[in-house]
Protein backbone atom coordinates (compact mmCIF):
# COMPACT_ATOMS: atom_id res chain seq x y z
CA UNK A 1 0.00 0.00 0.00
CA UNK A 2 1.44 3.35 -1.05
CA UNK A 3 2.00 5.92 1.67
CA UNK A 4 1.46 9.47 0.49
CA UNK A 5 2.75 12.46 2.50
CA UNK A 6 0.05 15.12 2.80
CA UNK A 7 2.33 18.11 2.06
CA UNK A 8 3.16 17.00 -1.50
CA UNK A 9 1.53 17.78 -4.83
CA UNK A 10 1.42 15.22 -7.62
CA UNK A 11 1.46 15.15 -11.40
CA UNK A 12 -0.67 12.50 -13.12
CA UNK A 13 2.65 11.25 -14.56
CA UNK A 14 3.59 10.29 -10.95
CA UNK A 15 6.12 12.97 -10.01
CA UNK A 16 5.76 14.64 -6.63
CA UNK A 17 6.53 18.32 -5.98
CA UNK A 18 7.13 20.08 -2.68
CA UNK A 19 7.22 23.85 -2.18
CA UNK A 20 10.16 24.71 0.10
CA UNK A 21 10.43 27.68 2.48
CA UNK A 22 12.88 29.42 0.10
CA UNK A 23 10.39 29.32 -2.76
CA UNK A 24 12.07 26.50 -4.66
CA UNK A 25 10.23 23.29 -5.58
CA UNK A 26 11.72 19.86 -4.97
CA UNK A 27 10.75 17.04 -7.37
CA UNK A 28 10.85 13.26 -7.10
CA UNK A 29 8.76 10.25 -8.13
CA UNK A 30 5.95 8.74 -6.11
CA UNK A 31 5.98 5.54 -4.11
CA UNK A 32 3.47 4.16 -6.58
CA UNK A 33 5.83 4.99 -9.47
CA UNK A 34 8.85 3.28 -7.89
CA UNK A 35 6.75 0.25 -7.07
CA UNK A 36 5.53 -0.02 -10.65
CA UNK A 37 9.06 0.36 -12.03
CA UNK A 38 10.71 -2.15 -9.71
CA UNK A 39 14.43 -2.05 -8.88
CA UNK A 40 15.81 1.30 -10.05
CA UNK A 41 19.38 1.04 -11.39
CA UNK A 42 20.04 4.31 -13.24
CA UNK A 43 18.70 7.85 -13.27
CA UNK A 44 19.37 10.49 -15.90
CA UNK A 45 18.85 13.96 -14.44
CA UNK A 46 18.46 17.31 -16.21
CA UNK A 47 21.36 19.76 -16.29
CA UNK A 48 21.47 22.54 -13.74
CA UNK A 49 20.44 25.78 -15.44
CA UNK A 50 18.05 24.11 -17.85
CA UNK A 51 14.65 25.79 -18.08
CA UNK A 52 11.75 23.36 -18.26
CA UNK A 53 8.11 23.90 -19.09
CA UNK A 54 5.43 22.08 -17.11
CA UNK A 55 5.08 18.59 -18.55
CA UNK A 56 8.42 18.75 -20.38
CA UNK A 57 10.75 15.71 -20.28
CA UNK A 58 13.22 16.21 -17.48
CA UNK A 59 15.07 12.91 -17.29
CA UNK A 60 14.79 9.14 -17.29
CA UNK A 61 14.48 6.49 -14.60
CA UNK A 62 15.73 3.07 -15.61
CA UNK A 63 14.75 0.03 -13.60
CA UNK A 64 15.93 -3.47 -14.41
CA UNK A 65 12.59 -3.91 -16.14
CA UNK A 66 12.11 -0.72 -18.14
CA UNK A 67 13.02 2.89 -18.86
CA UNK A 68 10.52 5.57 -17.93
CA UNK A 69 10.61 9.31 -18.70
CA UNK A 70 10.19 11.79 -15.90
CA UNK A 71 8.54 15.14 -16.50
CA UNK A 72 8.73 18.55 -14.87
CA UNK A 73 5.51 18.82 -12.82
CA UNK A 74 5.66 22.63 -13.11
CA UNK A 75 7.74 25.02 -15.19
CA UNK A 76 10.99 26.52 -13.93
CA UNK A 77 14.76 26.54 -13.96
CA UNK A 78 16.69 23.55 -12.63
CA UNK A 79 18.77 24.93 -9.73
CA UNK A 80 20.03 21.67 -8.19
CA UNK A 81 20.17 17.95 -8.92
CA UNK A 82 20.59 15.10 -6.45
CA UNK A 83 24.06 13.79 -7.35
CA UNK A 84 23.81 11.08 -4.70
CA UNK A 85 21.32 9.19 -6.89
CA UNK A 86 24.13 8.29 -9.30
CA UNK A 87 25.71 6.03 -6.69
CA UNK A 88 22.57 4.84 -4.93
CA UNK A 89 19.67 4.80 -7.40
CA UNK A 90 18.07 2.05 -5.28
CA UNK A 91 17.26 4.69 -2.63
CA UNK A 92 14.36 5.69 -4.90
CA UNK A 93 12.83 2.30 -4.09
CA UNK A 94 13.50 2.38 -0.36
CA UNK A 95 12.71 6.08 0.23
CA UNK A 96 10.85 7.62 -2.71
CA UNK A 97 9.84 10.78 -0.84
CA UNK A 98 13.33 11.33 0.57
CA UNK A 99 15.11 10.65 -2.72
CA UNK A 100 14.55 13.88 -4.60
CA UNK A 101 15.63 14.20 -8.24
CA UNK A 102 15.98 17.94 -8.83
CA UNK A 103 14.94 21.37 -7.54
CA UNK A 104 13.22 23.99 -9.65
CA UNK A 105 13.00 27.74 -9.29
CA UNK A 106 9.36 27.99 -10.44
CA UNK A 107 8.52 30.40 -13.22
CA UNK A 108 4.94 30.54 -11.95
CA UNK A 109 4.41 29.03 -8.52
CA UNK A 110 0.63 28.98 -9.05
CA UNK A 111 1.17 26.04 -11.41
CA UNK A 112 1.44 23.96 -8.24
CA UNK A 113 -2.28 24.47 -7.74
CA UNK A 114 -2.97 22.59 -10.97
CA UNK A 115 -1.34 19.48 -9.53
CA UNK A 116 -3.19 16.88 -7.50
CA UNK A 117 -3.15 16.94 -3.74
CA UNK A 118 -2.35 13.73 -1.88
CA UNK A 119 -5.97 12.66 -1.55
CA UNK A 120 -6.76 13.30 -5.22
CA UNK A 121 -3.59 11.51 -6.36
CA UNK A 122 -4.41 8.54 -4.17
CA UNK A 123 -7.86 8.25 -5.71
CA UNK A 124 -6.61 8.23 -9.34
CA UNK A 125 -7.43 4.88 -10.86
CA UNK A 126 -3.93 3.60 -11.58
CA UNK A 127 -2.64 4.44 -8.10
CA UNK A 128 -5.49 2.53 -6.47
CA UNK A 129 -4.98 -0.46 -8.73
Amino acid at each position, binding site marked *: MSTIPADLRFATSHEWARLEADGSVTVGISDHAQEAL*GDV*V*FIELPEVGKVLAAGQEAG*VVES*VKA*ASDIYAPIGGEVIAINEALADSP*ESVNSDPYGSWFFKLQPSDVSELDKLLDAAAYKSTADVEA
Partner: protein
Amino acid sequence: MGLRTPLYGLHLALGAKMVDFGGWDMPLHYGSQVEEHHQVRRDCGVFDVSHMTVVDVSGSQAKAYLQHLLANDVERLDIPGKALYSGMLNQQAGVIDDSIVYLTATPELPDSYRLVVNAATRDKDLAWMRQQSSAFAVELNERADLAMLAVQGPQARAKVAELVTQARAALIHELQPLQGLPEGDWFIARSGYTGEDGLEIMLPAEQSLAFLNDLVGAGIPPIGLGARDTLRLEAGMNLYGQDMDEQVSPLAANMSWTVAWEPASRDFIGRAELERQQKAGASAKLVGLVLEERGVLRAHQVVRVAGVGEGEITSGSFSPTLGKAIALARVPAATAERAEVEIRGKWYPVRVVQPSFVRHGRALI
Protein backbone atom coordinates in the same frame (compact mmCIF):
# COMPACT_ATOMS: atom_id res chain seq x y z
CA MET B 1 -7.45 -13.53 -17.76
CA GLY B 2 -4.42 -15.55 -18.70
CA LEU B 3 -3.59 -19.20 -18.22
CA ARG B 4 -2.61 -20.18 -14.69
CA THR B 5 -0.26 -22.78 -13.32
CA PRO B 6 -1.45 -24.88 -10.33
CA LEU B 7 0.67 -22.57 -8.16
CA TYR B 8 -1.05 -19.30 -9.11
CA GLY B 9 -2.82 -18.89 -5.76
CA LEU B 10 0.36 -19.50 -3.81
CA HIS B 11 2.23 -16.90 -5.86
CA LEU B 12 -0.39 -14.34 -4.87
CA ALA B 13 -0.18 -15.41 -1.24
CA LEU B 14 3.60 -14.97 -1.40
CA GLY B 15 3.16 -11.38 -2.60
CA ALA B 16 3.96 -11.86 -6.27
CA LYS B 17 3.47 -9.10 -8.79
CA MET B 18 1.95 -11.01 -11.70
CA VAL B 19 2.51 -10.31 -15.41
CA ASP B 20 1.43 -11.82 -18.69
CA PHE B 21 4.08 -14.09 -20.20
CA GLY B 22 3.11 -15.79 -23.44
CA GLY B 23 -0.53 -15.94 -22.37
CA TRP B 24 0.26 -17.11 -18.83
CA ASP B 25 -0.21 -15.11 -15.62
CA MET B 26 3.23 -15.55 -14.06
CA PRO B 27 5.09 -13.99 -11.13
CA LEU B 28 7.43 -11.15 -12.20
CA HIS B 29 8.90 -10.77 -8.72
CA TYR B 30 7.89 -11.08 -5.07
CA GLY B 31 9.35 -7.73 -3.98
CA SER B 32 12.76 -7.12 -5.54
CA GLN B 33 13.96 -8.88 -8.66
CA VAL B 34 17.53 -7.78 -7.96
CA GLU B 35 17.46 -9.40 -4.50
CA GLU B 36 15.98 -12.55 -6.05
CA HIS B 37 18.78 -12.58 -8.62
CA HIS B 38 21.48 -12.38 -5.93
CA GLN B 39 19.68 -15.04 -3.91
CA VAL B 40 20.05 -17.54 -6.77
CA ARG B 41 23.71 -16.67 -7.44
CA ARG B 42 24.66 -16.88 -3.74
CA ASP B 43 22.38 -19.58 -2.30
CA CYS B 44 19.30 -20.84 -4.16
CA GLY B 45 15.70 -20.09 -5.03
CA VAL B 46 12.71 -21.76 -6.66
CA PHE B 47 10.98 -20.87 -9.94
CA ASP B 48 7.55 -22.05 -11.04
CA VAL B 49 8.12 -23.09 -14.65
CA SER B 50 4.95 -25.16 -14.96
CA HIS B 51 3.92 -23.06 -17.96
CA MET B 52 6.57 -24.79 -20.06
CA THR B 53 5.42 -27.49 -22.45
CA VAL B 54 6.49 -31.08 -21.83
CA VAL B 55 6.06 -33.63 -24.61
CA ASP B 56 6.87 -37.33 -24.33
CA VAL B 57 7.94 -38.98 -27.56
CA SER B 58 7.80 -42.77 -27.83
CA GLY B 59 7.42 -45.50 -30.40
CA SER B 60 9.73 -47.72 -32.41
CA GLN B 61 10.86 -44.80 -34.59
CA ALA B 62 11.13 -42.14 -31.88
CA LYS B 63 14.86 -41.83 -32.37
CA ALA B 64 14.65 -41.57 -36.16
CA TYR B 65 11.87 -39.00 -35.80
CA LEU B 66 13.89 -36.77 -33.47
CA GLN B 67 16.96 -37.15 -35.66
CA HIS B 68 14.86 -35.65 -38.44
CA LEU B 69 13.09 -33.04 -36.31
CA LEU B 70 16.06 -31.58 -34.43
CA ALA B 71 19.33 -29.96 -35.54
CA ASN B 72 21.21 -31.63 -32.71
CA ASP B 73 21.50 -35.43 -32.78
CA VAL B 74 19.78 -37.52 -30.09
CA GLU B 75 22.23 -40.31 -31.04
CA ARG B 76 24.57 -38.41 -28.68
CA LEU B 77 22.39 -39.40 -25.72
CA ASP B 78 24.30 -42.51 -24.74
CA ILE B 79 23.17 -43.10 -21.15
CA PRO B 80 19.62 -43.04 -19.76
CA GLY B 81 18.58 -39.63 -18.58
CA LYS B 82 21.22 -37.79 -20.59
CA ALA B 83 19.90 -34.60 -22.18
CA LEU B 84 20.86 -32.17 -24.92
CA TYR B 85 19.87 -28.73 -26.09
CA SER B 86 18.65 -28.37 -29.67
CA GLY B 87 16.96 -26.05 -32.07
CA MET B 88 13.93 -27.24 -34.00
CA LEU B 89 14.31 -25.69 -37.46
CA ASN B 90 12.08 -25.10 -40.43
CA GLN B 91 13.15 -25.84 -44.04
CA GLN B 92 14.58 -22.31 -44.30
CA ALA B 93 16.78 -23.07 -41.25
CA GLY B 94 14.89 -20.58 -39.09
CA VAL B 95 14.41 -21.54 -35.45
CA ILE B 96 10.84 -22.68 -34.71
CA ASP B 97 11.80 -23.20 -31.07
CA ASP B 98 14.59 -24.41 -28.83
CA SER B 99 14.24 -27.39 -26.55
CA ILE B 100 15.86 -29.72 -24.07
CA VAL B 101 15.54 -33.43 -24.91
CA TYR B 102 16.02 -36.17 -22.30
CA LEU B 103 16.53 -39.82 -23.15
CA THR B 104 13.87 -41.46 -20.99
CA ALA B 105 14.42 -45.01 -22.25
CA THR B 106 13.51 -47.94 -19.99
CA PRO B 107 13.81 -51.67 -20.69
CA GLU B 108 10.05 -51.72 -21.48
CA LEU B 109 10.17 -48.55 -23.60
CA PRO B 110 13.68 -48.40 -25.10
CA ASP B 111 12.84 -45.68 -27.63
CA SER B 112 11.46 -42.86 -25.53
CA TYR B 113 12.35 -39.24 -25.02
CA ARG B 114 11.02 -36.21 -23.19
CA LEU B 115 11.10 -32.78 -24.82
CA VAL B 116 10.67 -29.51 -22.97
CA VAL B 117 9.74 -26.58 -25.22
CA ASN B 118 8.63 -23.00 -24.61
CA ALA B 119 5.20 -22.04 -23.32
CA ALA B 120 4.56 -19.16 -25.71
CA THR B 121 5.25 -21.39 -28.73
CA ARG B 122 3.25 -24.40 -27.54
CA ASP B 123 0.59 -24.43 -30.23
CA LYS B 124 2.86 -24.01 -33.23
CA ASP B 125 5.43 -26.43 -31.79
CA LEU B 126 2.87 -29.18 -31.29
CA ALA B 127 1.36 -28.57 -34.73
CA TRP B 128 4.80 -28.77 -36.36
CA MET B 129 5.83 -31.83 -34.37
CA ARG B 130 2.59 -33.64 -35.27
CA GLN B 131 2.90 -32.70 -38.92
CA GLN B 132 6.47 -34.01 -39.07
CA SER B 133 5.55 -37.21 -37.20
CA SER B 134 3.23 -38.58 -39.89
CA ALA B 135 6.02 -40.51 -41.63
CA PHE B 136 7.23 -42.17 -38.43
CA ALA B 137 5.93 -44.84 -36.06
CA VAL B 138 5.88 -42.45 -33.14
CA GLU B 139 3.54 -41.21 -30.46
CA LEU B 140 3.50 -37.69 -29.04
CA ASN B 141 2.02 -37.19 -25.61
CA GLU B 142 1.79 -33.73 -24.12
CA ARG B 143 2.17 -33.88 -20.35
CA ALA B 144 -0.14 -31.10 -19.22
CA ASP B 145 -0.65 -33.18 -16.06
CA LEU B 146 2.83 -32.22 -14.83
CA ALA B 147 3.94 -29.15 -12.95
CA MET B 148 7.59 -28.08 -13.06
CA LEU B 149 9.67 -26.38 -10.41
CA ALA B 150 13.25 -25.24 -11.00
CA VAL B 151 15.42 -24.93 -7.91
CA GLN B 152 18.58 -23.10 -8.91
CA GLY B 153 21.73 -21.98 -7.14
CA PRO B 154 24.88 -23.42 -5.55
CA GLN B 155 22.90 -24.78 -2.54
CA ALA B 156 19.94 -26.07 -4.58
CA ARG B 157 20.76 -29.77 -4.69
CA ALA B 158 21.86 -30.01 -1.05
CA LYS B 159 18.79 -28.17 0.23
CA VAL B 160 16.26 -30.04 -1.91
CA ALA B 161 17.79 -33.40 -0.99
CA GLU B 162 16.91 -32.74 2.66
CA LEU B 163 13.23 -32.31 1.84
CA VAL B 164 12.50 -35.37 -0.29
CA THR B 165 12.41 -39.16 0.09
CA GLN B 166 15.68 -41.04 0.51
CA ALA B 167 15.44 -42.46 -2.97
CA ARG B 168 14.97 -39.00 -4.50
CA ALA B 169 17.77 -37.55 -2.38
CA ALA B 170 20.07 -40.31 -3.57
CA LEU B 171 19.18 -39.58 -7.17
CA ILE B 172 19.77 -35.84 -6.65
CA HIS B 173 23.27 -36.60 -5.39
CA GLU B 174 24.05 -38.94 -8.28
CA LEU B 175 22.77 -36.91 -11.22
CA GLN B 176 25.37 -35.60 -13.66
CA PRO B 177 24.95 -32.13 -15.17
CA LEU B 178 22.29 -32.21 -17.89
CA GLN B 179 20.90 -35.57 -16.82
CA GLY B 180 17.34 -36.26 -15.68
CA LEU B 181 15.74 -39.45 -14.38
CA PRO B 182 12.40 -40.57 -12.99
CA GLU B 183 11.91 -41.46 -9.32
CA GLY B 184 8.41 -42.72 -8.66
CA ASP B 185 6.06 -40.23 -10.32
CA TRP B 186 8.67 -37.44 -10.27
CA PHE B 187 11.22 -36.66 -12.95
CA ILE B 188 14.29 -34.95 -11.54
CA ALA B 189 16.82 -33.27 -13.83
CA ARG B 190 20.06 -31.48 -13.05
CA SER B 191 19.58 -28.60 -15.45
CA GLY B 192 18.39 -25.04 -15.58
CA TYR B 193 18.40 -21.61 -17.14
CA THR B 194 20.50 -19.56 -14.75
CA GLY B 195 24.17 -20.55 -15.20
CA GLU B 196 24.15 -22.12 -11.73
CA ASP B 197 23.94 -25.72 -10.58
CA GLY B 198 20.38 -26.77 -9.84
CA LEU B 199 17.41 -28.98 -10.50
CA GLU B 200 14.32 -28.97 -12.66
CA ILE B 201 11.67 -31.19 -11.12
CA MET B 202 8.58 -32.35 -12.98
CA LEU B 203 5.89 -33.78 -10.77
CA PRO B 204 2.14 -34.42 -10.84
CA ALA B 205 0.41 -31.04 -10.74
CA GLU B 206 -1.60 -31.99 -7.66
CA GLN B 207 1.61 -32.51 -5.66
CA SER B 208 3.22 -29.23 -6.70
CA LEU B 209 1.52 -26.94 -4.18
CA ALA B 210 2.65 -28.99 -1.18
CA PHE B 211 6.17 -29.29 -2.60
CA LEU B 212 6.52 -25.56 -3.26
CA ASN B 213 5.25 -24.93 0.27
CA ASP B 214 7.92 -27.30 1.61
CA LEU B 215 10.64 -25.53 -0.38
CA VAL B 216 9.59 -22.04 0.73
CA GLY B 217 9.15 -23.26 4.30
CA ALA B 218 12.71 -24.59 4.23
CA GLY B 219 14.04 -21.15 3.34
CA ILE B 220 14.22 -21.52 -0.43
CA PRO B 221 12.50 -18.32 -1.58
CA PRO B 222 10.39 -18.05 -4.72
CA ILE B 223 12.00 -16.24 -7.67
CA GLY B 224 10.09 -14.48 -10.43
CA LEU B 225 10.49 -14.15 -14.18
CA GLY B 226 12.32 -10.85 -13.77
CA ALA B 227 15.30 -12.47 -12.10
CA ARG B 228 14.98 -15.48 -14.39
CA ASP B 229 15.60 -13.13 -17.31
CA THR B 230 18.65 -11.38 -15.82
CA LEU B 231 20.11 -14.71 -14.68
CA ARG B 232 19.77 -16.31 -18.11
CA LEU B 233 21.11 -13.17 -19.80
CA GLU B 234 24.20 -13.16 -17.57
CA ALA B 235 24.64 -16.84 -18.40
CA GLY B 236 24.44 -15.98 -22.11
CA MET B 237 21.44 -18.22 -22.72
CA ASN B 238 19.08 -17.31 -25.54
CA LEU B 239 15.45 -16.42 -24.99
CA TYR B 240 13.24 -17.64 -27.81
CA GLY B 241 11.36 -14.85 -29.57
CA GLN B 242 13.98 -12.32 -28.54
CA ASP B 243 17.41 -13.68 -29.42
CA MET B 244 16.19 -15.97 -32.18
CA ASP B 245 13.01 -16.84 -34.03
CA GLU B 246 11.85 -18.29 -37.34
CA GLN B 247 13.66 -15.55 -39.26
CA VAL B 248 17.02 -16.30 -37.63
CA SER B 249 19.47 -19.09 -38.40
CA PRO B 250 21.06 -20.93 -35.47
CA LEU B 251 24.40 -19.90 -37.00
CA ALA B 252 23.48 -16.27 -36.30
CA ALA B 253 22.18 -17.03 -32.80
CA ASN B 254 25.22 -18.52 -31.08
CA MET B 255 23.70 -21.98 -31.61
CA SER B 256 26.25 -23.44 -34.03
CA TRP B 257 27.42 -25.76 -31.26
CA THR B 258 23.94 -27.31 -31.18
CA VAL B 259 24.02 -28.29 -34.85
CA ALA B 260 25.28 -31.86 -35.27
CA TRP B 261 26.75 -31.96 -38.81
CA GLU B 262 28.01 -35.53 -38.50
CA PRO B 263 26.98 -38.00 -39.73
CA ALA B 264 26.53 -36.21 -43.05
CA SER B 265 23.81 -38.70 -43.95
CA ARG B 266 21.45 -37.50 -41.20
CA ASP B 267 18.77 -35.55 -42.99
CA PHE B 268 17.41 -33.13 -40.38
CA ILE B 269 14.95 -30.39 -41.28
CA GLY B 270 16.78 -27.25 -42.40
CA ARG B 271 20.04 -29.06 -43.12
CA ALA B 272 20.31 -28.16 -46.80
CA GLU B 273 19.85 -24.45 -46.13
CA LEU B 274 22.22 -24.53 -43.15
CA GLU B 275 24.92 -26.16 -45.29
CA ARG B 276 24.44 -23.48 -47.90
CA GLN B 277 24.81 -20.77 -45.23
CA GLN B 278 27.85 -22.50 -43.75
CA LYS B 279 29.55 -22.57 -47.17
CA ALA B 280 28.65 -18.96 -47.92
CA GLY B 281 30.00 -17.89 -44.54
CA ALA B 282 27.78 -16.45 -41.83
CA SER B 283 26.90 -12.80 -42.32
CA ALA B 284 25.79 -12.10 -38.75
CA LYS B 285 26.52 -13.42 -35.30
CA LEU B 286 25.30 -13.06 -31.74
CA VAL B 287 27.80 -11.39 -29.42
CA GLY B 288 27.83 -10.02 -25.90
CA LEU B 289 28.01 -6.30 -25.13
CA VAL B 290 29.13 -4.60 -21.93
CA LEU B 291 28.35 -0.95 -21.23
CA GLU B 292 31.13 0.58 -19.11
CA GLU B 293 29.25 3.82 -18.50
CA ARG B 294 26.09 4.25 -16.47
CA GLY B 295 22.95 3.37 -18.36
CA VAL B 296 20.95 0.33 -19.37
CA LEU B 297 21.10 -1.60 -22.64
CA ARG B 298 17.72 -2.70 -24.00
CA ALA B 299 16.41 -4.92 -26.78
CA HIS B 300 16.16 -3.22 -30.20
CA GLN B 301 18.74 -0.52 -29.53
CA VAL B 302 20.97 -0.03 -32.56
CA VAL B 303 24.60 -1.19 -32.42
CA ARG B 304 27.22 0.44 -34.65
CA VAL B 305 30.59 -1.19 -35.35
CA ALA B 306 32.92 1.38 -36.89
CA GLY B 307 33.87 0.46 -40.44
CA VAL B 308 31.88 -2.78 -40.29
CA GLY B 309 28.18 -1.98 -40.08
CA GLU B 310 25.14 -1.99 -37.87
CA GLY B 311 23.37 -4.53 -35.72
CA GLU B 312 20.74 -4.67 -33.01
CA ILE B 313 20.49 -5.63 -29.36
CA THR B 314 18.27 -8.70 -29.00
CA SER B 315 18.27 -8.85 -25.16
CA GLY B 316 19.60 -6.20 -22.82
CA SER B 317 19.33 -5.41 -19.14
CA PHE B 318 21.20 -4.40 -16.05
CA SER B 319 23.38 -7.21 -14.71
CA PRO B 320 22.95 -7.33 -10.93
CA THR B 321 26.07 -9.51 -10.56
CA LEU B 322 28.34 -7.23 -12.60
CA GLY B 323 26.69 -3.95 -11.61
CA LYS B 324 26.56 -2.75 -15.21
CA ALA B 325 24.43 -3.12 -18.30
CA ILE B 326 24.97 -6.13 -20.57
CA ALA B 327 23.31 -7.33 -23.75
CA LEU B 328 23.16 -9.92 -26.46
CA ALA B 329 23.34 -8.32 -29.90
CA ARG B 330 23.24 -9.55 -33.47
CA VAL B 331 26.00 -7.78 -35.39
CA PRO B 332 27.86 -8.26 -38.69
CA ALA B 333 30.06 -11.36 -38.37
CA ALA B 334 33.19 -9.28 -38.99
CA THR B 335 32.56 -7.28 -35.77
CA ALA B 336 35.29 -5.65 -33.66
CA GLU B 337 36.35 -5.42 -30.02
CA ARG B 338 34.44 -2.22 -29.51
CA ALA B 339 31.14 -0.86 -30.74
CA GLU B 340 28.63 1.86 -29.94
CA VAL B 341 25.00 1.64 -28.89
CA GLU B 342 22.40 4.33 -29.40
CA ILE B 343 20.45 5.11 -26.22
CA ARG B 344 17.87 7.89 -26.50
CA GLY B 345 19.70 9.58 -29.36
CA LYS B 346 23.19 9.40 -27.85
CA TRP B 347 25.95 6.94 -28.76
CA TYR B 348 27.61 5.05 -25.89
CA PRO B 349 30.79 2.97 -26.25
CA VAL B 350 30.46 -0.75 -25.44
CA ARG B 351 32.90 -3.67 -25.28
CA VAL B 352 32.14 -6.64 -27.53
CA VAL B 353 32.65 -9.94 -25.67
CA GLN B 354 31.84 -13.64 -25.86
CA PRO B 355 28.10 -13.95 -25.15
CA SER B 356 28.52 -15.42 -21.67
CA PHE B 357 28.94 -13.08 -18.72
CA VAL B 358 28.55 -15.03 -15.46
CA ARG B 359 28.80 -18.75 -14.64
CA HIS B 360 28.63 -20.39 -11.22
CA GLY B 361 28.65 -17.04 -9.49
CA ARG B 362 31.79 -15.82 -11.25
CA ALA B 363 32.22 -13.00 -13.74
CA LEU B 364 33.62 -14.19 -17.06
CA ILE B 365 34.24 -10.79 -18.57
